[in-house]
């Protein structure tokens, strides 16, 4: 191989028509080169053009967009004729792994048929060869039961498994160039680690060139050899991963690096003796019809308790399916618990919405994750906020208008936004309006359900900062639900860890800085990617589960530790026979585990 790079992009521009018909460059004069077998990361926030650039490498532009400039991948060029055009090589020599594998698979066909489809379409292998190759890839990607997993349907597989299957689909034609478009963004941290490790191994084995699109520098640090930092369609910095992480040359890169580890400046440690505001005592809840014993068909929460002091911030973390959103729904009254009670200021709240007074409802407000669907697109921002003011405070006319302006000022948006509709706002702006709607009620406590999860790191940091300031200035308390322990640690005084609907650990947020903690907390914390290139190699090398998945059936029916099937430190004869005790650690955190403090610390 000579100095000739595998991918050579020169002066790439992508132009779309703006709303008024004038041409708008969404990618402006981008040039880069990738050597054969190397991985280049495209990094930037949403709207930076990273996906557009990745797609243009396949000669593909979304509807209405026009590509100009020079792109050369191997012997193919953008305007090449016949088999030498990028378009002809798409799906064959150049393949793509999309963000949401769950949406990318056809639910009515077995996965193996979909995985080998590219090979059959492009004629690189016959059916039997392709199937054999697929099984090899499944093995390489560390999928369970590689020989038979292909005969399942997409709904029988988890998000992480589907994402790896999608990678197998991209690799089945033995491509030269694989484009990964945010492949782990939608996954839990614990799953993300496994998927990243599988990807890295396979890409190295296949010797393919890679383009990795992401907004997360820490993920990129594990996957890529060099990084291209993008902002608003222009290149801000281009260097090797190590250089970007250690000696960033551009201001924007430094902003990204800073945002990767959120630190909230306005954070006020809550005084420990603050009065109790909200307490949740022994909540059991679930979905589906309730049977004679008062147990729902799909139980989610079992015996969850937590307390929120006045003006305090309590974080609830756990992976998807841990029941953390259900906690918020129970507190808000959207879901009636089957046992246990929610107490606000010493007054037990009714289980269902209709039995709560308007005043009780006003004091607890909920903010949902996805501002795109949490704000009614038919109404203007002013109407959305005004409705809350009229409903709870009987405000209308100029008083309401003035209050809306005040609220918008509080969330750092210009007052002109009141006349705009939500679909004209950016993601971060929408999330601010979402927050303002809760603030309009003058609540005592706001339930934040993954409010920062859908946002870019830079925007996320701004929202966190806003939340902390509001808490300092207005004395509002938060029940902050998230899957991201870094976010929770930055904002909250106390943290509760949920696993499959049980509370496995709770304590001050400082207690989560160092062990001992619950084995699950340990897994969560160690799964968060760190900003160094060798992190992925070191992680996940811990012991495999002691008692294995076979313990799963017993766990489901009794009060045994639910983490047992995945626990690396399970004790045979104890963990699979008796329910775990609550242990008080020296740092003040309470852990639900058979292991003693000394054992957990080691």
């Amino acid at each position, binding site marked *: 191989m000579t100095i000739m790079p595998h991918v050579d992009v020169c002066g790439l521009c992508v132009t779309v028509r703006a709303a008024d018909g004038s041409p708008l460059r969404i990618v402006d004069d981008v040039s880069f080169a990738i050597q054969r077998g190397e991985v280049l990361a495209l990094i930037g926030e949403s709207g930076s053009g990273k996906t557009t650039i990745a797609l243009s490498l396949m000669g593909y532009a979304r509807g209405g967009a026009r590509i100009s400039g020079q792109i050369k991948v191997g012997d193919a060029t953008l305007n090449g004729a016949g088999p030498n055009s990028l378009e002809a090589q798409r799906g064959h020599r150049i393949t793509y792994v999309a963000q949401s594998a769950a949406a990318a698979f056809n639910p009515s066909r077995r996965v193996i048929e979909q995985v080998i489809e590219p090979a059959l379409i492009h004629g690189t292998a016959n059916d039997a060869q392709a199937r054999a190759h697929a099984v090899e890839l499944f093995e390489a990607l560390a999928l369970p039961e590689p020989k038979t997993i292909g005969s399942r349907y997409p709904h029988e597989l988890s998000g992480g498994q589907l994402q790896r299957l999608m990678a197998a689909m991209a690799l089945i034609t033995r491509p030269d160039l694989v484009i990964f478009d945010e492949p782990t963004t939608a996954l839990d941290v614990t799953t993300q680690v496994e998927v990243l490790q599988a990807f890295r191994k396979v890409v190295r084995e296949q010797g393919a060139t890679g383009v990795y699109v992401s907004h997360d520098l820490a993920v990129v640090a594990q996957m890529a050899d060099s990084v291209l930092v993008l902002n608003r369609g222009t290149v801000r910095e281009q260097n090797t991963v190590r250089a970007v992480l250690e000696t960033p040359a551009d201001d924007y890169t430094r902003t990204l690096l800073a945002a990767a580890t959120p630190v909230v400046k306005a954070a006020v440690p809550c005084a420990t003796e603050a009065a109790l505001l909200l307490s949740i005592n022994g909540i059991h809840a679930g979905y589906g019809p309730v049977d004679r014993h008062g147990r729902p068909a799909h139980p989610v929460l079992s015996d969850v308790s937590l307390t929120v002091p006045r003006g305090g911030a309590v974080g609830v973390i756990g992976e998807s399916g841990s029941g953390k959103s259900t906690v918020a729904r129970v507190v808000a009254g*959207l879901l009636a618990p089957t046992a246990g009670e929610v107490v606000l200021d010493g007054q037990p709240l009714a289980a269902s919405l209709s039995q*709560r007074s*308007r005043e009780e*409802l006003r004091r607890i*407000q909920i903010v949902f994750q996805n501002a795109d669907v949490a704000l*009614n*697109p038919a109404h203007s921002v002013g109407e959305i906020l005004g409705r809350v003011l009229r409903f709870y405070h009987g405000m209308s006319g100029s008083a309401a208008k003035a209050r809306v302006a005040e609220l918008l000022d509080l969330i750092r948006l210009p007052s002109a936004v009141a006349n705009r509709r939500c679909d004209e706002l950016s993601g971060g702006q929408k999330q601010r309006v979402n927050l303002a709607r809760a603030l309009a009620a003058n609540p005592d406590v706001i339930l934040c359900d993954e409010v920062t999860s859908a946002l870019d790191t830079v925007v996320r940091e701004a929202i966190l900062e806003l939340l902390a300031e509001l808490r300092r200035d207005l004395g509002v308390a938060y029940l902050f639900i998230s899957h991201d322990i870094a976010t929770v640690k930055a904002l909250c005084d106390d943290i509760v860890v949920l696993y499959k609907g049980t509370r496995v650990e709770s304590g001050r947020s400082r207690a989560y800085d160092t062990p001992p903690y619950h084995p699950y907390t340990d897994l969560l914390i160690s799964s968060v990617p760190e900003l160094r290139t060798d992190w992925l190699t070191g992680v996940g090398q811990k012991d495999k589960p002691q008692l294995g998945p076979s313990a799963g059936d017993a766990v489901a029916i009794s009060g045994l530790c639910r983490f047992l099937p995945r626990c690396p430190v399970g004790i045979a004869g104890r963990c699979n026979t008796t329910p775990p005790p609550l242990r008080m650690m020296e740092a003040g955190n309470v852990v639900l585990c058979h292991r003693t403090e000394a054992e957990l610390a080691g």
Partner: protein
Amino acid sequence: MANLINRAGRLPLSGKIGLAFVLFWIVVAVIGPWIAPYSPGSFVNDEVFAESSRAHLLGSDFLGRDVLSRLLSGARFTVGLSAIAVAIAVGIGTGLALTAAVGPRWLDELLSRAMDTLISIPSKIFALVLVAAFGSSLVLLTMIIAVTYVPGNFRIARSLAVGLAKLDYVEVARARGEGRVHLALVEVLPNMIKPLFADIGLRFVFIVLLLSGLSFLGLGLQPPDADLGSLVRENTSGLAEGALAIIAPAAAIASLTVGVNLLIDAATQGKAE
């Protein structure tokens, strides 16, 4: 008003054509009888199925009446009856659909099964039976046609409303303690307007055709009144010679229904994501 004109100006060409047709037929429906050159019931031409002439622009019908005059006075029945019937059908159908979406589960079940029962009866036969049972006065005819089209609209509106009622913004309003009426009318309804309009367009066309069909069978409007459908029926004997008397009302029905659909398609497409 200025806003409406502004929006009309931004319609694509097909939408403008549709709008022109619709406006034309509304104007005809309103002022038709006054600009008709002859009385619709009087025999003014000795020749039946006459060709177009200066005195009779659209010729004469099977009894020697002026086709243009009959068309101008018949249009108001087709346009008016259909518009009123579609308004009633959509009002009831969407109203019940919203009730089902935000109401308790048993009410949803009850309404849905009741509508399923109605929808399982073929609409034309159903209308025929009702007309046969209750006679065919103008009011009754409108009601019958409206009721016939309630279930179809209910099904579409309910599936839209149930989907929207699960979204977070409705959940937020519910957590705020809003009543069901607010949830239905303020949170859900505004977001289903566009697909609902597409359905209204379709249903308007169905109603025009059903009304014309009923009239064609002699069960719709009774003489001496005549809508566009009855004009086609009474002149069927002229079909063999390609008389204007049958082509004109048929073309009128076509232009009305096509116009309505072009307009609604263009208007609802505009901002769809």
